[in-house]
C-alpha cells in the first residue's frame, strides 16, 4: 500500500483538489480513496490502469464531498469573478500575458475532462471509464469545454485566433 500510495497520491490529490477546491477536503479525500482501495483490492480486475481506477474512485468521492458542502463556488460564479477583476490595472497588465490569463481561466473552468486528458494523460476510453459516460460524449464534452475556455479568455481580453 505504501508503494501504491507513494506512486499515486500526488496525482490523486491534485485531481481531487481541482474538483473540490479545498486543500483540507482534498487531503481527506486521498485518505478515503486509498482506504477504499485497501478494502476493495479484490474488485480490481486489472482491465484498466491502476491510475484510472484510482481517479474514478477519487471523482466519485469528490462529488459526494461537494454534495455535502453547499458553499462551494459554481463555475459560472468563478467565470464572473474573472470579468469583475478587469478594471484592476494590475490584473489588466497581467492579462496581457496569455499564459497567466489562460491559467486563470483554466482554474475557473474547472472541467475535469481537461485535467484528465491534458494532465493525467488519459485516453478517450479511460476518461469514459472514469467519468462514466460514452466515448463520443467524452470527445464532444472536451470540445465544448475548450469552447467555454475560449469564451472565458475572450471575456478576459485575450484573443487566440480560435474559434
Amino acid at each position, binding site marked *: 500500500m505504501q508503494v501504491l500510495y507513494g506512486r499515486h497520491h500526488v496525482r490523486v490529490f491534485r485531481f481531487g483538489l481541482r474538483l473540490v477546491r479545498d486543500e483540507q477536503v482534498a487531503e481527506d479525500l486521498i485518505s478515503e480513496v486509498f482506504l477504499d482501495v485497501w478494502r476493495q483490492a479484490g474488485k480490481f480486475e486489472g482491465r484498466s490502469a491502476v491510475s484510472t481506477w484510482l481517479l474514478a474512485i477519487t471523482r466519485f468521492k469528490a462529488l459526494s464531498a461537494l454534495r455535502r458542502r453547499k458553499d462551494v463556488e459554481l463555475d459560472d460564479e468563478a467565470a464572473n469573478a474573472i470579468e469583475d477583476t478587469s478594471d484592476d490595472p494590475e490584473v489588466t497588465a497581467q492579462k496581457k500575458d496569455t499564459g497567466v490569463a489562460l491559467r486563470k481561466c483554466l482554474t475557473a473552468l474547472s472541467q475535469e475532462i481537461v485535467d484528465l486528458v491534458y494532465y493525467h494523460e488519459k485516453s478517450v476510453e479511460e476518461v469514459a471509464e472514469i467519468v462514466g459516460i460514452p466515448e463520443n460524449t467524452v470527445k*464532444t464534452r472536451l*470540445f465544448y469545454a475548450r469552447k467555454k475556455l475560449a469564451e472565458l479568455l475572450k471575456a478576459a481580453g485575450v484573443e487566440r485566433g480560435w474559434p
Partner: protein
Amino acid sequence: MMATSKKILEQEPSEIEMLLPWHAAGTLNTRDARRVEEALARDPELAKQYAVIREEYAETIDLNESLGAPSARAMQKLFAAIDGEPARKPSASFNISAGISGFFARLSPRTLAWSASLGALALLLQAGVIGAVLMKNQNAAFQTASLSTNEPLTRDLSVGAPPPRALVRFAPDARIADITALLDTYQASIIDGAKGGMFRLQFNNRALSKDEFAGLLRKLQGEKIVSLAVAAQ
C-alpha cells in the same frame, strides 16, 4: 456571451477536430495519430487550432504542477485507518486478483509495509544493475557523430545559480541517438523522468535571462523530435 454560445453550439466539430487534444497529449493510437497528422498537414485552420490546444495543454500541466502535494497528515490518517481495519478472511474465489487480494489481506498493514519497502529496495537495486549494464554497453549501441563515447551524458552542474530546467516530451518516434544528440546540442541532461511521458531537462550552468530562456524553449519546441517543451522548476 449568450449569442456567442449559441453560435458556437451550432457548429458541429469534425471527428478529427475532437481528437486534437489527445494528439497533443500523445494518447491516441497509431491509426488515429496518423489520421490527425495527415489532416494537420493539409488543413491550416486545423493546424492553427492545434497550436492553441498545445498552449492549453502546456498551461494545464503547469497549473496542476503548481498545486503542490498533500501533507504527511493524509498518509498518517490513512495508515491509522488501515491499522484499525478488522482482519479479513481470504476470498474463496478462484480468480487471480481475488487470490492476490486475499494474500495481502492476510498480512498485517505493517508486514505489508515492510514487504513493500523491501520490494522497492529490490527494484532500486535492479535499476542500478540495468543502468550499469547500459552505460557499459553504450558505445556499441547508440554511437552518433556528436556523441563522445568516453563521456557520460550528464554534466557537472555543481556551481553557480540554479540552472534553468524544462519539462520535455519527445515525439513517439524519437530515437535514443536523436535524443542524445539533442541533449548534446543544448548542453542539457535528463535529471528526472519519464513521469507521464515528460522528462525534466536541466541546461548548462550558464545563467540565462528570462528572454534568453524563453528563446531557448522556443528553439527546443521547434525541434522535430520534441512535441512539447515548457519551463519547469
